[in-house]
């Protein structure tokens, strides 16, 4: 069973540069979505999905979370999950109220 250092250090640099290309491609794709004629809501959802995908790749491959102990992975993912709830669920209440306010104005 290899240690964390062995797992990280034994793969060379090629994988990191391949991921760099993937991240650049995703960034360009997101710019196209931002420039598209889509309305703001689907555009925001697509961009958030793109950003979440990029963030996951960075966390698992650049930050080497995939090589970590299962307990650490669970703690980090739980923290990120709760952060996600804060980002998406909490403003949804205010957003709904604001939308209703506008519709009945």
């Amino acid at each position, binding site marked *: 069973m290899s240690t964390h250092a062995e797992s990280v250090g034994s793969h060379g640099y090629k994988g990191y540069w391949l991921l760099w290309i993937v991240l650049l491609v995703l960034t360009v794709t997101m710019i196209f979505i931002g420039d598209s004629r889509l309305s703001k809501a689907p555009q925001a959802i697509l961009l958030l999905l793109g950003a979440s995908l990029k963030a996951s790749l960075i966390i698992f491959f650049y*930050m080497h979370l995939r090589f970590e102990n299962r307990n650490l992975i669970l703690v980090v993912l739980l923290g990120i999950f709760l952060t996600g709830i804060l980002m998406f669920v909490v403003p949804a209440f205010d957003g709904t109220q604001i939308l209703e306010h506008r519709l009945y104005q």
Partner: protein
Amino acid sequence: MSNTAGAMTSPWTGTASPFGVAWQKLMMWIFIVTDALLFAGLLVGYGVVRVASPTWPEQSVAFNMNYITLMTFTLITSSATMACGVAAAMAGNKKHVTLFVWLTILGGLSFLGMQAYEWSHFIHEGARLTSNPWGVPQFSAAFFIITGFHGMHVTTGVTILLVVAIRSAMGKYSAQGVENAGLYWHFVDLVWVFVFALFYLV
């Protein structure tokens, strides 16, 4: 005697390592998660303000999007060089550690330089924390607060990397120190991914 041995291996004595990592790395991960909450709060605040505002300026009017894209590419590239630096540290390749950490510092300084130029350009156009020429005061307030907080994190990251690079050049680096610095640097890149998507693209 057997009771003492049993107590020493109990998780409550502090001798066990349930996360399988050194405490410095565990603390860095916990810090990253809590710092992510800080940025989530800022971005949520921005989202609510934006939804509540009847109008919002088109980003392409206020910013040069090609320039912002270049800033993003610079930060992503610095993340790739940092990952290579960490891998070199784990493999014990001191020469590559120094090279990749300096490349990462160069990327960070380039990003900060570009951000300073963007801020000065924005201010020159009349944007302030409480007002701006595009009519929605919250627009410039959100810009200065979110990118300012992120810029402070980049500055801290560059400072940490400078310490790592100098120690590495002196032969005093530890693989774990490089990895912890790398974790922080990747987090800075990760936050920018969301700032870029939510503030500049939506």
